[in-house]
């Protein structure tokens, strides 16, 4: 079971028991195998975390004595800071390691670096890497929880969790909502993880973008279907009709190798979210963006900062979601070391329950 958390500075007791049990998942690498119930248990845990964050001193000792290492091989502001604040709010020690300025620059391999961090006493590894699959390679070798903070063009599970959580916040329920994800789907780890999470929760998801920025299978007509249960539309003006959620993705300027697009102007004209286009969506529609935004390209400034935008809520919710994820994986690791499940080898220092 997941124990109650915090008999903290205030002396009050706040249970963080999830309404539905977490299955004891030791790593969070993607949402592709998350059930509806499991996602709900993350959200319920995040609800409790949000209560903690609303306190005058938003800090509990659940992860006191644990070291969370943020291993970031790619630049990041919001994700890294979000994980750092989340871990600190749970009382963990946080160490940030970036590729530049570390032994990575001296040619150390990925696995040697993580083994070193493990030997130094890391209890949780939060990994951002430019290569798809890198956190999986690490997780296979590690006896401590690994959380994927974005790998290449593959997955970004905590972003997808906070996206779904934000939608749930706004609409109460995700089942049956129409969600439109617009842009460079081919290179988007956010779109991939969102597709898994949101469809598991019953949303109707559409990928929209120019054909050259869509996954290869989105264009195939030989029966090889896309991995995700989503629909595809090349025409934004058509796709945006009556949707409940509009999520433009960042045009990844650094990834536009070759000539996939004639110009950013072409993109903005046909796929930018403007006020006029947004008016075609449902009147209650919200606008989301995983950030960082290129205002004037995939989203106009007045939309990005307008009344329908929940971009700031996404960022804020990210801390609660990451607290929930960190809490749950550490709790699972502690459970595992008590012999309940065995995806993780018991780690020294993780014996016994999470402190309550």
């Amino acid at each position, binding site marked *: 079971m997941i124990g109650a958390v915090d008999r903290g500075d205030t002396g009050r007791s706040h249970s963080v028991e999830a309404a539905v049990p977490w299955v004891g998942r030791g790593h969070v690498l993607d949402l592709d195998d998350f059930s509806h119930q499991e996602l709900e248990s993350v959200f319920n845990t995040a609800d409790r975390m949000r209560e903690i964050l609303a306190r005058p001193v938003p800090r509990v000792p659940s992860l006191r004595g644990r070291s969370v290492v943020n291993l970031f091989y790619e630049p990041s502001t919001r994700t890294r800071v979000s994980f750092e604040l989340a871990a600190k709010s749970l009382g963990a020690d946080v160490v940030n390691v970036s590729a530049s300025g570390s032994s990575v620059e001296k040619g150390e391999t990925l696995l040697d670096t993580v083994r070193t961090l493990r030997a130094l006493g890391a209890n949780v590894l939060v990994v951002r890497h430019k290569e798809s699959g890198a956190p999986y390679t690490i997780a296979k070798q590690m006896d401590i929880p690994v959380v994927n903070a974005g790998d290449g*063009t593959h997955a970004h599970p905590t972003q997808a969790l906070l996206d779904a959580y934000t939608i749930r916040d706004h609409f109460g329920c995700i089942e049956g909502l129409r969600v439109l994800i617009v842009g460079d789907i081919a290179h988007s780890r956010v779109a991939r993880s969102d597709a898994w999470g949101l469809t598991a929760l019953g949303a109707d998801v559409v990928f929209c973008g120019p054909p050259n920025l869509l996954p290869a299978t989105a264009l195939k007509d030989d029966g090889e279907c896309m991995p995700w249960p989503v629909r595809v539309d090349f025409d934004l003006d058509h796709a945006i009709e009556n949707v409940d959620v509009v999520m433009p993705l960042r045009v990844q300027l650094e990834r536009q190798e070759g000539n996939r697009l004639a110009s950013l102007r072409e993109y903005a004209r046909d796929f930018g979210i403007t006020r006029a286009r947004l008016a075609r969506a449902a009147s209650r529609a919200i606008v989301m963006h995983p950030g960082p935004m290129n205002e004037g390209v995939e989203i106009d400034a007045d939309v990005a900062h307008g009344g329908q935008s929940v971009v700031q809520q996404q960022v804020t919710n990210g801390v609660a979601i990451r607290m929930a994820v960190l809490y749950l994986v550490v709790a699972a690791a502690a459970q595992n070391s008590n012999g309940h499940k065995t995806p993780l080898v018991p780690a020294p220092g993780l014996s016994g329950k999470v402190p309550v």
Partner: protein
Amino acid sequence: MTSIRIRNGRVIDPSQRRYEVVDLVIVDGHVDGYIGQEAQGSFDREIDAAGMVVSPGFVDLHCHLREPGFEDKETIATGAMAAVAGGFTTICCMPNTNPTIDTANDIAFVFAAARRAGLARVLPLGTVTRGELGRELSDATEMAAAGAVAFSDDGRPIWDGRMMRYALTNSLRHHKPIVNHCEDPVIADGGVMNEGRISDLLGLKGQPPAAEEVMVARDIELCCAWPSATDLPYPPR
């Protein structure tokens, strides 16, 4: 005269249309014949192959021994060890070493190292173009005379169609195959696996079949246009 009996193995030899558990007799390094498991006889050595397959040595037409230049990955000796451990008695090694196998001397180097290893029969390929740079033809005739079994710029395609044309027609002098690494690098575009559902799923850059097929199609046309001896290392599906 030395004789060996290999007992109880499953003999698989398509050339003799054999697929059965039978004993095999070898005399002075050559197969002498098959005898029933009950048959008596005295042999210098008996090998029990129960539960094993007995077959002619396998031939690998395309392997990499990495020597010279990349001995941290493989050497001619370690590659030959791996080969015989897996049942391969003849292996053909690609010339994309450092330096590449461009001359008769380079071919002789591979043979010498293989002889020192004393395991599998190692048959080297030479490059089609010097340094595999695609700029000028290597001296294939000289290398063929030294024992090169074929020519390839493996690891890189012969992207220049004119170079491919002349490499093919030049094979009329040495009668060895030209083995092209068929991959249009622009279409392949850095892909790391087949393009499709799984590459989309994993977020890995896919390489479409067309990257290979375009160059196979070109080479077929070149082979139709001029006489030559050629081979496509990864046959079209």
